[in-house]
């Protein structure tokens, strides 16, 4: 495997459309729940340990070769918000287009055929990691990091937060990212034998409620 492939996949400049999504941060800023670096950190920590850990586990399982359609169904069940399911599929579709060019593979082609409207983004991320020669824990790291880097970047724009402060938030989250990625990879290995019920299903009620509200806004900076 190539460790450098992980840097390519995790790079914020990877053309997969993630920059258009705030991961719920725009709704939280509007509601006054994120007002600066400290509350951004709280937000990211909560997101990482809930939907972030679920995404990381789904990505890791896909990277280990668990059937993507089964994982996509598991992602649906773990994403009760219709707005968030739609966003995850849009992001999955965009990631798949970029990944098929970057790491051509029959598995990515098959995924595109099976899900013309897009599979859940973490599932696509895992299959892309697999195509790039990466392992389950690599995919988990990439997904877990995205779950906090997206909101941090968005809040720089939404609140004119100092980018140094936003980056410091991400740096302080590194130990939590290690924990979440390792645990996600562990549960993904269990899912290989025991099925997808072994994957976590942690939820964040305010992210779900906020996503439905955000989807109804007439004017917004981010798609989700």
């Amino acid at each position, binding site marked *: 495997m190539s460790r450098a492939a992980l840097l390519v996949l995790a790079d914020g400049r990877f053309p997969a459309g993630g920059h258009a999504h705030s991961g719920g941060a725009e709704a939280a800023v509007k509601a006054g729940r994120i007002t600066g670096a400290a509350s951004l950190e709280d937000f990211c920590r909560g997101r990482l*340990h809930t939907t972030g850990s679920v995404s990381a586990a789904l990505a890791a399982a896909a990277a280990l070769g668990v059937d993507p359609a089964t994982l996509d*169904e*598991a992602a*649906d*069940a*773990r994403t*009760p918000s219709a707005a968030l399911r739609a966003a995850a599929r849009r992001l999955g579709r965009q990631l798949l287009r970029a990944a098929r060019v970057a790491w051509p593979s029959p598995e990515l082609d098959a995924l595109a055929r099976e899900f013309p409207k897009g599979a859940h983004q973490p599932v696509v991320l895992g299959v892309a990691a697999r195509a790039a020669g990466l392992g389950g824990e690599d995919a988990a790291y990439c997904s877990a990091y995205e779950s906090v880097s997206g909101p941090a970047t968005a809040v720089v724009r939404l609140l004119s937060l100092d980018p140094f402060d936003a980056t410091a938030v991400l740096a302080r989250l590194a130990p939590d990212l290690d924990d979440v990625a390792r645990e996600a990879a562990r549960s993904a290995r269990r899912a290989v034998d025991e099925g997808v019920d072994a994957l976590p*299903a942690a939820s964040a009620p305010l*992210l779900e409620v906020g996503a*439905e509200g955000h989807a109804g806004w007439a004017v917004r900076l981010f798609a989700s």
Partner: protein
Amino acid sequence: MDDGFDDAGDGTSPVTPQTLTPSTPGRPSPPDEPSTPAHPLPSPAGVHAHARIGARADPHGRTVLPVLDGEGPLALRRTRATGPAAHVTLVGAMSGPLGGDRLAVDADVGAGARLSVGSAAATIALPGQDGTAAHYDVRLTVATGAELRWLPEQLISVRGSELRVTTRADVEAGGRLVLREEQILGRTGESPGLLHSRLTVRYAGRTLLDQELSCGPGAPSGWDGPAVLAGHRAVGQLVIVDPEFTTEPPPAAMLGEHAARTPLAGPGILITALAPDALQLRRVLDEALHGLA
């Protein structure tokens, strides 16, 4: 009978909680001399009890309850019903669960039967003596043409307690389910215990909803932050599975500032609500339910 309570469906007297040997303040004290309890206890640390409800449609379209077996702190009463559905009330015969307790309730609703289950009081998770977690497992099965309304009172997580709740509902194609869960973090003005809950709903063999929530001291950090609860002390879910939603599910909608209804990826909807307290949470969920009727 005019007290609203019928005998247990099989005509036997209800199980009395005193047959178990609890060992915690607030419950009867264990005897000083070792004695043989009426039911052997798998663990000296807590109460193990399993209650079962079985509902079936009789040839006249009424619902009968061939199984209505309470155990220990989980007593069951058939309560007066006005419509064709059978009503059962779960009557907590002891405070709890306490740490170390393992409680389970199964309800099985056969084809064409209609069952409504409520509880007489809130379930209150309390600390045990040995610091271990309590477990509460609910298993619901709903056959085709059947309906289960599972509407228990709140679950209150008391400071110092640890409770793991799992609720799993399997609905066959053509079955209906209305399920409410409410978690209250601490009694009034009190910090909560540690609460893990997992709710899994399947329809026609496919998982429609799989959702975990962990909160309280010891939960993964960020649980009370702006992405998860943000200081709200009451959180609730209302799941409605209805085969009619296959073609036309109710659309997503905000139900106030901190509650939303969303169609699931199948014939079901989920209402998620957060509130400062139990009373306001119930008000939001009741309005959401009546809004669909």
